[in-house]
């Protein structure tokens, strides 16, 4: 059920501004032009929050607030005053009746969103359950680091992807950027002066627009204390410097909920092909592993009978890669999918080194493997 915000203001302009401000969030805006109408709408619709003006015809905001607090069913609804009446004495008088906040007009939409976001859980519309993004979709990544070389390195490393890298060298620049746009991912250097990374993280989480934006910590590999602290405060993941761009890409994809399965899996005729990348890092293996079960089950469901695992371009499998192959083949056997392997001499040699994999037969190409499966 979506959040309901009731704006009670005799000015249609203000009601329109409120509607405009919250259009990017999953919430319904209810309107009333005076206190009497406001009480009526509040009784019928039980809003999660009321934005209340003071000077209105028929019944003013102070009267409406007093009556609201006198009704058992309505007194729990949080109220934020949104009014041009901002004299100290007046604010104190209204505060005594019971309000959550007080916004004096003129107001910036960001301030309104921020204050409302402190009272109710605002979720961006883009956060609604939706199809996962593909890695061919554009994404905006904000890199906050006072060393320009880092942003440049990331920009260069991601130039094969349609991801836009934006740089901010300070907390202030990052906040300004987030006021203008909502990034899909934020990477913050923990080495920003005066622990600015943590205060920035708090501000990002306090802003309803970026409340759910994944935040990665950039930290030197040896700074284990900082890595621990980043995890403790709730940052989504850690990227160590020097940056392994493949690892960053894998972690960024995961953080942004990007469906990367098409990078590794394809259906070619009657065969499911799984291609391992050149660099089989721990994070890449985890990424492939997260898709294996679904892809194999999908292949069986679609009537495919063969699967080929292509490690022809892989430099080194390492233990994690070999384990992935082993699990994948086991899954194929369990579901009655015939499985063939393609590998280069290095991969073949690596597999010879383990008892369970030493007898694996590798082909030189996918076509050869498919033919082998047909005749087996």
């Amino acid at each position, binding site marked *: 059920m979506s959040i309901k915000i009731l704006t009670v203001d005799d000015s249609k*302009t203000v009601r329109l501004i409120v509607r405009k401000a919250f259009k990017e969030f999953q919430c319904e805006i209810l309107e009333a032009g005076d206190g009497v109408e406001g009480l009526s709408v509040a009784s019928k619709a039980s809003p999660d929050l009321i934005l209340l003006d003071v000077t*209105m015809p028929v019944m003013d905001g102070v009267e409406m607030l007093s009556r609201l607090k006198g009704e058992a069913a309505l007194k729990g609804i949080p109220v934020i005053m949104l009014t041009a*009446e901002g*004299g100290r004495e*007046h604010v104190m008088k209204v505060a005594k009746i019971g309000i959550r906040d007080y916004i*004096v007009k*003129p107001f910036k939409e960001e301030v309104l969103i921020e204050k409302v976001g402190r009272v109710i859980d605002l979720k961006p519309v883009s956060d609604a359950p939706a199809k996962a993004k593909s890695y061919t979709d554009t994404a905006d990544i904000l890199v906050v680091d006072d060393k320009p070389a880092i942003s440049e390195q990331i920009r260069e490393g991601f130039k094969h992807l349609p991801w836009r890298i934006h740089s901010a060298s300070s907390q202030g620049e990052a906040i300004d950027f987030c006021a203008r746009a909502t990034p899909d991912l934020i990477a913050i250097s923990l080495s920003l002066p005066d622990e600015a990374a943590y205060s920035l993280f708090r501000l990002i989480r306090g802003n309803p627009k970026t409340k759910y934006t994944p935040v990665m910590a950039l930290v030197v590999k040896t700074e284990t204390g900082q890595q621990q602290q980043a995890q403790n405060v709730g940052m989504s993941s850690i990227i160590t410097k020097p940056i392994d761009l493949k690892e960053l890409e894998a972690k960024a994809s995961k953080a942004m909920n990007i469906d990367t399965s098409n990078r590794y899996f394809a259906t070619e005729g009657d065969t499911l092909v799984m291609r391992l990348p050149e660099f089989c890092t721990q994070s890449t293996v985890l990424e492939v592993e997260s898709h294996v079960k679904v892809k194999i089950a999908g292949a069986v469901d679609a009537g495919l009978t063969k699967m080929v695992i292509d490690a022809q371009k892989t430099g080194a499998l390492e233990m994690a890669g070999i384990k992935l192959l082993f699990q994948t083949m086991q899954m194929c056997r369990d579901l009655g999918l015939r499985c063939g392997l393609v590998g280069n001499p290095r991969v073949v040699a690596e597999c010879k080194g383990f008892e369970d994999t030493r007898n694996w037969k590798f082909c030189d190409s996918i076509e050869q493997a498919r033919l082998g499966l047909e005749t087996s």
Partner: protein
Amino acid sequence: MPTQPVPSPTPTPGAPSGAFDAPLIRDFMAGSVGNVFKVMLSMDAVSVDLPHDAATLEGIGKPVKIPHDRIVGSIGFNGEATGNVFLHFELPFASACTCHLLGMSESELAEAGNECLNDAIAEITNMTAGGFKNALCDRGFPCMLTLPSVLRGSSFYVAPVSSAARHVSHFDCGGHRVTAEIFIKSNDPETS
């Protein structure tokens, strides 16, 4: 066509302004207009000094001279200080401000009609007068705003009645003129 006076609930030009000297009022108004234009319209409103002659309205009881059709937001304040604030806009600029405020195009505004424009100007005036009035409150003159209203036309002026002082401030807003006209009197017997 003769100019039509619009009676102001607060009276007479040239009356003592009591605690409210002209520079203080101008400061309050400049701060308030500047803040509203900056925050709501992303625009600087720069105070402009014009010669003190009748044409520019420092002369008592003379009309605010705006060469276009205009729209005037009006709002009163009552309490320890009493008076009115009038905010004069050229009509085309008022439309531009409304579009900015509501995120509308000119054609959308035309479709929405005069009510939309009037309401936006009333709200800008409400916010501006609010800032001015809050400054008075914090200075020890608590007062409350009345409901705003709007006047439109090309040939009218606000005729003050006795005992209220009149202050006029002009602002340049991106090449457009906005004029604030204030009538004020103190109800505090010690200062009035």
